[in-house]
């Protein structure tokens, strides 16, 4: 092959590589242990249990991004029951589980505890389903390209979890999966 043509192909592919890499969004330095809530007293049922800093997510993105969260269960909207301790009461709904997602700069759109929903109708913490205006760190709900390494206050998120079941649910052991999703703003 002609060396000049080969060089052209190489430059073209290099451009392609750079272009795709610009869409790179990822969670980094994730701390995601399993989280367990054990309700043994009436007071715990009434007042709930809060697990502070149950999870930490760090974001690195080369593109404008959205961040949303939802639950995954066998029956959307209901916890998966692994063991039943009784026959009375309803299966608990996923809305019982509340999250509070915090960043140093207060960037998430949901500032306090909010009820989770099925992932089919997720809660957007950064951005929306539509294309969003780019906001840089320090200007609000940051969705601009950036990294937790250089701007941790806008790209690192601590997640608190709260469960306040109240009464009337069927006694048993339950489980669900929380699905955190990071995507380029479309």
């Amino acid at each position: 092959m002609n060396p000049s043509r080969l060089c052209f192909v190489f430059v073209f592919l290099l451009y392609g590589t750079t272009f795709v890499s610009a869409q790179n969004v990822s969670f980094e330095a994730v701390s995601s242990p399993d989280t367990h809530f054990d309700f043994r007293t009436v007071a715990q049922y009434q007042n709930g249990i809060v697990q502070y800093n149950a999870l930490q997510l760090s974001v690195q993105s080369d593109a404008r991004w959205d961040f949303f969260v939802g639950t995954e269960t066998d029956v959307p909207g209901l916890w998966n029951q692994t063991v039943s301790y009784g026959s009375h009461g309803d299966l608990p709904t996923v809305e019982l589980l509340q999250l509070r997602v915090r960043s140093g700069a207060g960037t998430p759109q949901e500032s306090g505890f909010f009820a989770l929903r099925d992932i089919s109708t997720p809660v957007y913490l950064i951005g929306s389903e539509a294309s969003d205006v780019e906001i840089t760190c320090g200007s609000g709900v940051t969705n601009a390209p950036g990294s937790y390494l250089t701007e941790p206050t806008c790209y690192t998120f601590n997640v608190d979890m709260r469960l306040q079941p109240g009464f009337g649910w069927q006694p048993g052991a339950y489980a669900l999966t929380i699905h955190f999703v990071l995507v380029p703003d479309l």
Partner: protein
Amino acid sequence: MAAGLILGLTFAPEAAAQLSDEEYNYVTMDLRGILNLTMTTNPQVDFVFKNIQEYQQGITRFNATQLEVDATLAWDLFVYASTDNWTQVEAYSTNGNNVLPAEILEMRSSVTSTALVNLNDFSSLLGLTNSAVAAGVPTAATQFLAGEFGTAAGQSFDPGTAAANPDTHQFRLDMRLVPGIPATFASSGVDLSLLGNNSTFAQAGYYYLEVVYSLVEDL
């Protein structure tokens, strides 16, 4: 070589591309069924008959026992005597009948029960056999303070705390003993002549009876 270079570079962008990222957190929840029954009063209720008036009129202990229920699931509360008869500790006389059925004790609850057998008004407390409680499990013949035998709608009380639901989760129980003269306990409907030595009146003495309050998941 050129072809290999092109092939390698062609796949490189696909390997590096990450158009989205996802993380999963597994959350488990253990909901234990909790039933708390608390007696807020002294567990011993004494009736001492020292004069004629007390024998004739009887003694009523208002709010003799107060119970509080905290429950995270639907529940029933029933009551029965742990024996059929009062236990005589000491006899003060050789005359009379020392077999006194549990039913001479009359009780009344502040909470209205829809059960067929209840204590909505002063009624005899049923002894172990008459209550039909077997191994702690009630039947339709058992006296229910809350809920009733069966699991259909309306046959149990709702979960909740005593503090938040004083009308349904706090029980004030009145107790009454009316011996009469002679001490036949006629007002309670018992017939002492059918028991023990068939004497129609109670032997003077010191007796006790254990009353069982049982809080259970709706049965």
